[in-house]
């Protein structure tokens, strides 16, 4: 199977600060990969750099179904088939989700979009907050649900889901995992960023990658998550001979 996403030596940063220090990653179509790593290791930076967030500089190569993304504007990447579910979905005051969807439909200009909206609305129970302003005053779980809804209507080739499980209760985590698994198809590659192996209990990621200090330091099967759960990142750091960057939080009792 060909690759949905192919990242080669991706370096990204802000100003003089290099955050991603050479990331290589391949996600074949039909696969779901998980990306784990400690706070501040660069997971969200990866997700924003793929999407082309203006404040990040990026070099290297990112191929989406064979098309180079770097250098293209954000909206073009989206239209080429990249979807980013935000760790912190942005509030857009005064604009309801259904107005947003109407604008997207108008921009997309094709009929199948409306069908996807209808299906996804029903499937995700969006009726309750479709007329509320985007992400404003939504609970953590509702925001994540809204992101999943938007992914469903975007029908992407590559979905980067940045902590789609954070802030969710047990049932919601299982539900989201189910949604991701159900989205699995030969036309989609998924990168699921998570802190918890809990969500991985409800789905079957094909590979798990671990990012530390802006690099992917370990890739493997489901056993990687179990290993991390048992030993933590510090052990992995030590094994790999990585000097831990001082994190003041670690000094807390």
């Amino acid at each position, binding site marked *: 199977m060909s690759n949905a996403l192919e990242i080669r030596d991706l370096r990204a940063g802000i100003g003089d600060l290099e955050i991603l220090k050479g990331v290589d990653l391949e996600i074949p179509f039909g696969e779901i990969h998980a990306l784990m790593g400690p706070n501040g290791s660069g997971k969200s930076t990866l997700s924003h750099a793929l*999407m082309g*967030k*203006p404040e990040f500089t990026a070099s290297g190569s990112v191929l989406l179904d064979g098309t180079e993304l770097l250098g293209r*504007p*954000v*909206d073009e990447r*989206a*239209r080429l088939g990249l*979807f*980013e579910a*935000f760790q912190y*979905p*942005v*509030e*857009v*005051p*005064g*604009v309801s989700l259904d*107005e*947003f969807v109407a*604008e*997207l439909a108008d*921009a*997309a200009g094709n009929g199948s979009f409306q069908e996807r909206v209808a299906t996804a609305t029903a499937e995700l129970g969006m009726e309750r907050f479709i007329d509320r*302003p985007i992400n404003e005053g939504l609970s953590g779980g509702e925001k994540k649900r809204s992101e999943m809804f*938007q992914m469903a209507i*975007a029908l992407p080739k590559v979905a980067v889901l940045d902590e789609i499980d954070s802030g969710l209760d047990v049932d919601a985590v299982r539900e989201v995992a189910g949604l991701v698994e159900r989205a699995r198809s030969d036309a989609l590659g998924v990168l699921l960023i998570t802190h918890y192996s809990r969500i991985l209990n409800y789905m079957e990621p094909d590979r798990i990658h671990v990012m530390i200090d802006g690099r992917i330091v370990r890739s493997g099967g489901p056993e990687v998550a179990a290993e991390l759960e048992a030993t933590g990142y510090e052990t992995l750091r030590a094994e790999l001979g990585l000097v831990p960057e001082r994190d003041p939080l670690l000094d807390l009792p």
Partner: protein
Amino acid sequence: MPIMDLSALLRASGESDDALARREIAREHLASYSMPTGREEVWRYVDLDFALGDFELAPPPGADTPPTEDEATDASARAQIVDGAVVAAAARADGLRCERVAGGEESLVPADMDIFTAAHDAFCSEWVEIAVDKGKAIELPVVVDVSALSSAASFPGVRVDVADGAELTIAIRLDSADDVAALVVPHIEGRVGANANLTVVVDQEWGRQTKAIGQLVFSVGRDSSIQLAEAGLGGALARWQLNIKLAGQGSNAQVIGAYFGDRDQTLDYRYVMHHAAPNTHSTMFLKGAVEDEAGSIFTGMIRIDEEAQRTDAFQTNRNLILSDGASSQSVPNLEILANDVKCGHASTVGQLDPEQRYYLMSRGLDPMRADRLQVRGFFQEALNRFPVPEMVEPLRERFYQKYLDAQAGGRV
């Protein structure tokens, strides 16, 4: 003949000798006023590039004045003021009066505030008077159209009296054609009795060359409420001085505003909320945007008298600057003499939010669409609070259209 050089005032039909004599005195006083210089606090930030004396007094409109089209919106009463003259006024509801009155009682606006109020005192010879009887709730709005046809000065007057226990909604539309270089000084004023409710929606769409220096003045009685919303879209210069006096215990006021200045427009708001009685409550919520070389000014004052204990007052003013050449002033003021009050303000001047743009673009919207949506949302927060829902949909579209025009013109 320029307004300052008039040898005699024209008597309005039905105007009494006394009323005319009073206006003559006011006109003589006018000579002692000069144009604001910009150093006066209430005129700061605004550049008046004209003099009152540049204008002639608008002649009475001819008989061929087009009447207001009877629109689909039902109204309990309609009035029309053209170039300051009341050309139509009639009520259709029981307990409601809407008529032309020459002269009449003293205005709530002090004549000696500035040259414009003084001129209004001298030149406004007839008013639209709207009065609702005690205990009457008038369901349909009163619609008042104020327009300028000639490139001259006019002084429209609208007076509202809401008796105890009554309820009334008034929609005021102000407009002129883009080629009418008029100076309009509209005074809209009202008294609200006890246990009464007045809703006023002002739809300001003066033409590109019209300058408007207006007054909105209301006094609100015990346990009564006023809601006042203004949509400011037009005018070369459009200024409102608003003063709401919460005169009765337990009265409350809600002031809402949305304004959008394009090209070289100046939109100027001087709003005063005066809490003069205990247990009074007020909010002001205004959102405005400016593009190209437009400027906006909002100065909001919450004044709380010593006896106005247990007052709750808040003002919010948010401004969006859409082009480098545009400017916006937002100046909140509090003057609090009572000690048991809750009072605050929030005031911002900013630009479109890059995080919102990024988020919207990440779903496939091009930057123009993303910004449009953000601007739409920005105004929606104010427009959604407008009290007459039927008026909101067209306003929404007009604010949106203004931004589309700015985008199409490459100004934002």
